[in-house]
């Protein structure tokens, strides 16, 4: 394989992983915009999406299993918001974030007990492990096309929802000015629940579509959440399209590090990006000014 095609291979691998990070990052942004909370349990939605789909796939056809998983996890997301965040208005954002960490741990352990510690995966949507398409000299699995296509389509659909539909515009109103939105008659609480539900659905879908490639296991949530957060912060919190760019960048940098460093270090790249962004430019590439540093509040 030539150097160029090897590089392309890594690039594609990076973009594939990156789209999952992008999906998680968009989920972060949705919830952050609507509630101001950074939901560190976001990664668990991805994990649960895959886990539930794998279980359902034993009984029903694959498309039904995936749809079912997405719906179930979306409902779970709504339920979590209602149970844990509706009543907690007097808590600071930091308290709420710590609660999401606690939730992430509990969900992880629940997954361990409901299923087990074994790695599982959905079958390939089309083809199998060895089928490959040829693209510009690189061999890629058809699943990669599924990942890119699904995440891409979902992002576009989400943008369309936010820009052109009434509930979508209501959500944007909530995030830019909650008081005004309330005065305009928008039900803030339902919008918040909706944001959780949408995030969970997005995460679950990403979890299903990535499952054949990266496998699904109960511990995959935490690193995904941190990398997804790195992606969201890199793009700039509050900007969903920037989150996609952030995700792709994180994925590509991670893939590049795999090619240079021993395999055991490949996770570190994303976390180092997170630290660097936080230290050097907390607002990310496209975020608003003056965020995250001493001087606000």
């Amino acid at each position, binding site marked *: 394989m030539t150097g160029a095609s090897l590089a392309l291979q890594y690039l594609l691998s990076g973009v594939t992983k990156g789209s999952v990070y992008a999906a998680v990052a968009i989920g972060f942004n949705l919830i952050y915009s609507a509630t101001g909370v950074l939901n560190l349990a976001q990664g668990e939605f991805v994990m649960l999406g895959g886990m539930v789909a794998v279980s359902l796939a034993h009984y029903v056809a694959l498309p039904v299993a995936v749809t079912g998983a997405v719906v179930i996890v979306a409902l779970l997301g709504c339920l979590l918001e209602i149970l844990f965040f509706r009543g907690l208005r007097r*808590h600071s954002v930091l308290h709420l974030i*710590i609660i999401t960490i606690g939730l992430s741990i509990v969900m992880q*352990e629940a997954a361990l*007990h409901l299923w087990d510690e074994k790695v599982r995966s959905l079958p390939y949507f089309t083809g199998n492990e060895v089928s490959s398409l040829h693209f510009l000299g690189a061999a890629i699995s058809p699943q990669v096309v599924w990942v890119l296509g699904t995440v891409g389509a979902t992002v576009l659909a989400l943008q369309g929802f936010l820009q052109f539909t009434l509930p979508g515009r209501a959500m944007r109103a909530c995030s830019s000015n909650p008081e005004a939105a309330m005065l305009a008659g928008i039900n803030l609480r339902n919008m918040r629940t909706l944001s959780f539900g949408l995030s969970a659905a997005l995460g679950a879908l990403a979890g299903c579509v990535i499952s054949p490639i990266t496998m699904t296991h109960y511990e995959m949530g935490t690193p995904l959440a941190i990398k997804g957060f790195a992606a969201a912060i890199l793009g700039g919190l509050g900007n969903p399209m920037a989150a996609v760019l952030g995700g792709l960048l994180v994925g590509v940098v991670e893939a590049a590090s795999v090619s240079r460093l021993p395999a*055991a270090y490949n996770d570190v790249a994303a976390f180092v990006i997170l630290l660097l962004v936080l230290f050097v430019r907390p607002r990310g590439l496209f975020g608003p000014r003056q965020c995250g*540093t*001493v001087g606000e*509040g």
Partner: protein
Amino acid sequence: MPRMNRIRCALPAALFALAATGVQLAMRATGTDYCLTQLTMALYYALVALGLCLVMGYAGQVSLGHGAFFALGGYTSAILTTHDLSWLGPGGAVPWLKAAGLLAARQDLYGNRLLTVSPWAAFLAAMLLGAAVACLIGYPALRLRGHYLALATLAFGVIVNKLLLASSLAGAADGINGVPEWRLLAGLTVCGKGPARASNYYLACGLVLLTLLALRNLVHSRVGRALQAIRDGETSAAALGIDTARYKLKAFVLSALLAAMAGVFFTHYTGGIGPSEAGALKSVRYVALVAAGGLANLWGVALMSTALNYASLRGWFGTYDNAVFGALLILLVSLAPQGPLTPLGGWLRRLARRAGWKPQPRARLAGTAAAQSGADPAPHLRIEGRPGHGAA
């Protein structure tokens, strides 16, 4: 200091010493001496929680990566005291270093002769490294606010965890074993051997007690007030002339040193250390323990941390160990953000007052009724004998 005040200050320490001795004697009597091992380990974990209590409860800075400092301390001393330096040969500076106590020759478990760094030197190295890393990470991180700081520290902890897992020098996923014992004084050796269990337990108790006393002094002093000012209003604190960046960093480094120290003692006691000590689960657990203890309550944190870690180490939580701490975190933060022991403490104080106990000296000034409310946020204020003022 008036006698009442002195007794009040010495009382918790005396109770602690009494309880510690009582537990040990009870265990000896019931033949459950082996439980002392887990209790000693729990006490070392409590040291980390105490440092975190200072940073989180009093300075108001959240750190989700404190396990990394514990691991740094433990791994530094483990690596230095197990890594064979025999290739340096018998000559040169080696005899000097041995005489100075920096290098030590010993035999390992299999009877091989080893030349390693001595435990005391390794301890100093661990402290220096802990302080250096804390400065390096703390300086940029503490300029961040709230959730950004929390995530930066989380990322830091995870990076350390991953690096330890990947490094063969650190034993990768297996960690390091065969860490030698550490002779502190004649008759006091940090090791896990049966006969030394009681002395090690009292050593751990002593360290925790000393830390508690030092931190309590700190908290009730000019520095402690400044830290609390930073917690409750950083802008106002700066406008009063408090160097907030420097104080936050110092508190952070102090807590990192405590964690590293705990790591060193822990490693010599148990004979080894693993990469999970730096993991996110452990770091989050420390946060849960500080929250359980009451955030800004040193004794509460020491107590709850020891108790919960002991229960966890004894296996009382079974396979739900992590879930328990996760659930604890959720419950505590959502239901009692100021810590569960605060309402309990308030209730006890009211009971005590009814029984005739005088209010705390530091609140007793000019003897007005208003002063009786002490530190409890009272909804109404009564001011007597001051014409012209109404309770607004």
